[in-house]
């Protein structure tokens, strides 16, 4: 056991799953065509992102999980309504999740009015909308970043998370300066394109 474990390539996992765009396209297509195993794969890939949005919007875990459930069930039954040319599957799911979350907030406000208690249970749905929009933008940009070719992603992550200059990135990675610049440019163009299609720029 020890011997087998030694020298074995380790694996790492992210919940914002990485995958080539074509792979995601194929998954979306299978989902749309009603392949039940695709529902599970879509959930594995995006369930955590939907839950994150829901938690940030409705504020408590139990309601957030209800939102996730309602979102995936609605997405499954309404799958013919997903139009790939209008945005990514993730953005579509997040759009459904936002509406479901706002339904929860409205129901809460109704209950609060019915019991004459002030709305201390959470923010009003109108106030939540811009915040949720920002979360959606971050999620789709993070998803796009995760799907970039590995070198492009690495260069951008060093710039974003480690605050390295392009010269420092070249030193850290051993890539020529020109390559770093072109990878930054191409990677940023992909993120920008995705944000324009899926995000608040619409």
């Amino acid at each position, binding site marked *: 056991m020890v011997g087998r474990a030694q020298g074995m390539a380790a*694996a790492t996992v992210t919940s914002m799953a990485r995958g080539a765009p074509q792979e995601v396209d194929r998954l979306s297509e299978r989902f749309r065509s009603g392949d039940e195993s695709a*529902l599970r794969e879509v959930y594995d*890939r995006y369930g955590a992102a939907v839950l994150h949005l829901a938690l940030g919007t409705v504020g408590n875990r139990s309601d957030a999980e209800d939102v996730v*459930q309602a979102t995936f069930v609605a997405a499954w039954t309404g799958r013919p309504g997903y139009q790939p040319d209008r945005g990514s599957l993730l953005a579509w799911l997040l759009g459904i999740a936002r509406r479901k979350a706002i339904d929860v907030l409205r129901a809460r406000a109704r209950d609060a009015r019915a019991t004459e208690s002030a709305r201390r249970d959470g923010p009003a749905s109108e106030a939540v909308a811009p915040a949720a929009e920002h979360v959606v933008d971050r999620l789709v940009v993070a998803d796009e970043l995760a799907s970039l070719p*590995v070198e492009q992603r690495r260069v951008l992550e060093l710039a974003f998370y480690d605050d390295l200059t*392009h010269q420092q990135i070249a030193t850290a990675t051993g890539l020529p300066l020109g390559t770093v*610049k072109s990878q930054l440019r191409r990677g940023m163009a992909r993120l920008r394109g995705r*944000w324009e299609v899926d995000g608040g720029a619409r």
Partner: protein
Amino acid sequence: MAHVDPDHLILLALGEPSPDPADAAHLADCRTCRDELDATRHVADLARDGEELRDLPAPPPALWDRIAAEALGPAGPGVRRATGLAPAPQGVVLPFDQNRRRQVRRRSVLVAAVALLVGVIGTVGVVRLASGDSDGGRVVARAALLPPAGAPGGAHGSAQVIDTGHGLQVKVDVEGMPVIAGYYTVWIYDGKDVMIPLGSPGAAPLNLPPAAGDLAVFHVVDVSAQDLGQQQHGRSLLQGTLQR
């Protein structure tokens, strides 16, 4: 008048100075370039803010059962049985990449300090590999950890897998660990060929990644000795099989 070079705009958006001092004057006059810079900068900021999104906790396993029951009905047990591992070979489980290595390197400075401390304390007692109590969580599996063949004797420990209601976490306590130059790492292991590092000593409990959430598959907890900067699994010091 020529617009700002696209490469320069990217650098500016990322917070670097432009290599061309004339860019500033051009930007002051040119609405097109300014809008372009603003939009690029906005996207860069969104990406920066998204760092925490890289390791979002998976929804609790029971949530999938509810979705499957409602969306697919009682039929489709095959789908429900297919736990998070099905898509793994295509995209979820990745080989250790450069970026991860950086994180490990960064973390190892801290870990080296902890290892040093452990050395000072010697065999005094318990090293808590995952802190935090199981507040509200439910223990779904346990393992007694013992030295595998070839590892130094005397060490022992225990692992608990806790369902927090928002993902699984692993808590590992060890005792009598040998003093090592590097640091200890906890791994979840399928007993065959996939080992996933969960983390090192620290204040946070160890999150079990969603792709390793099927404990029928990932049923072994391993604690290894790692050399500084070592990315692959080092030497097993403790190992145990999870009992559910």
